[in-house]
């Protein structure tokens, strides 16, 4: 199991959750006007991509998860990757 260190420096950590990642990736896909079914598929693919990357790592940061998720999204949906990376700017 991979431990995720949160970015706010408070040293809270949690186990890596594919559900949280799927939700955020799915939201980025929907923001890029991807149909809902396809958004879910892309989210599952990205989640598997990140899980594969993290399987041998015992601790990663939330920034790492975002970075690798962005790498995965760039492969499966470049438009959603842009939304995912720049969502704070967009909002």
């Amino acid at each position: 199991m991979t431990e995720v260190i949160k970015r706010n420096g408070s040293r809270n950590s949690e186990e890596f959750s594919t559900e949280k990642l799927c939700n955020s990736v799915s939201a980025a896909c929907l923001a890029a006007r991807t149909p809902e079914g396809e958004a879910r598929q892309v989210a599952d693919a990205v989640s598997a991509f990140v899980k594969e990357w993290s399987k041998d790592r015992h601790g990663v940061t939330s920034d790492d998860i975002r970075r690798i998720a962005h790498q995965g999204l760039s492969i499966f949906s470049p438009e959603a990757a842009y939304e995912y990376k720049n969502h704070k700017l967009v909002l």
Partner: protein
Amino acid sequence: MARKPQFDYDLIVIGSGAAGSPAATIATQNGKKVAIVEKDIFGGESPNWGDIPVKSLLHATHLYSEAKDGARFGIRSSTIGYNFMSLKAWKDLAIKRTGAGNNRRYYEKQGISTYASTAHFLSPHEIAINRRHLTAANFLIAAGSYWETPDIVGLKNIPFYTPRDILDITRPPKSLLILGGDSAAVEYAQLFAAFGTKVYIVERAGRLLPNEDSEAGETLSYILKRKKGVEILTETRILSVEKNGTLKKIIYLRGGQEKSLKVDEILVTTGRTPSVDIGLENASVRYTPKGVEVNEFLQTSTKHIFAAGDVLGAKKQTQTALIESRIAANNIFNKQKVAPDYNSVPNITFTNPGVASVGLSEDDCLKRDLDINTAIAPLNIIARSNTSDFRDGFVKIIADRHGVILGATVVAPHAGEIIHELALAVKYGMTAGELAVTPHAFLSWSEAVRVAASRLS
């Protein structure tokens, strides 16, 4: 007053290979608290599947080949053979005798804490390993490199070997295609050709050993083709590979024509990628896919983190990694920092004859627009070529217009020994004239060095 931060270790070394071990040993001998983190086999590539096993097998195959060709010296060699499993046992003995191969206790006996885990930076002073977090005042990134599957259609769908696992085979293949034409490729080519394997080398560049002087690649190609029956396909690009029954069918492009050939096994020696995916962003260490960025003192963009070895990019020989590791250890703990001198580090290919070079090649000089003179002494003009009955080889020396030696290439038996005299010359800016007047023993191969130097002086 702010408290000095407390760390678990003075130094954590990520990687236990040639770039990590010396630094860890030096630091611990100087009273520092040191840990090594290794995700793979302790000792790294060199003792486990690199230099030690390959060169020990090459030694045995050179003996075998020389003995088989001994009839011209009056040696009866018709019944000479080999036992592949015995050869592998010899190789395993050589690995075991290094002490470092696959031996975690080797480090623990020196007082170095060891962790068998991947390391991942969480912050500039903290890494995560095995569900623990370790902190250190300093880090040395010696994570090495790994083989990435080249982007060739179909290659991912068929089994192929890399230098990591080719020596695990139980018997030599009937035919072998080697992708790549560098030092490792020609060493494996000679190794397997000695066992009777039909070897093909495929290289995109115009010659073997593209990073050496052109004469070295041409001479070695001639020897491999003529004496070992190796087929060398330079200026060749592989288009696709696929399974064809028990064989592998390779389609390649050469001279504008598509051709194919079938082999039993494929060995990929190209495509080394630095292992930079260790959370360097969290430590603010700058890097690219080509490697970690360091200054001349091997210091990264985070001043307490250093890096050495293959992780800096470009496949390096073990001696370079060793030098960098020792220098990194000095630079981490001493105010007086030292920069590695790469110019006088020899590169050696352990074929027979060997190929060795030091300093600048002729291509390097041309790129820098240097005004140079070169001289080549073929081996067949020195007495040793007669008594050893070996004539294919040379010593080439490159000097500037004042005669200062800038670089040299040797293709000869024991090239790896001969080159060190020239490395000394390059390091201390000796002239060809100084080398020419230095006595060289009669009937030594090094007489060719004196002859080449005298042609320049």
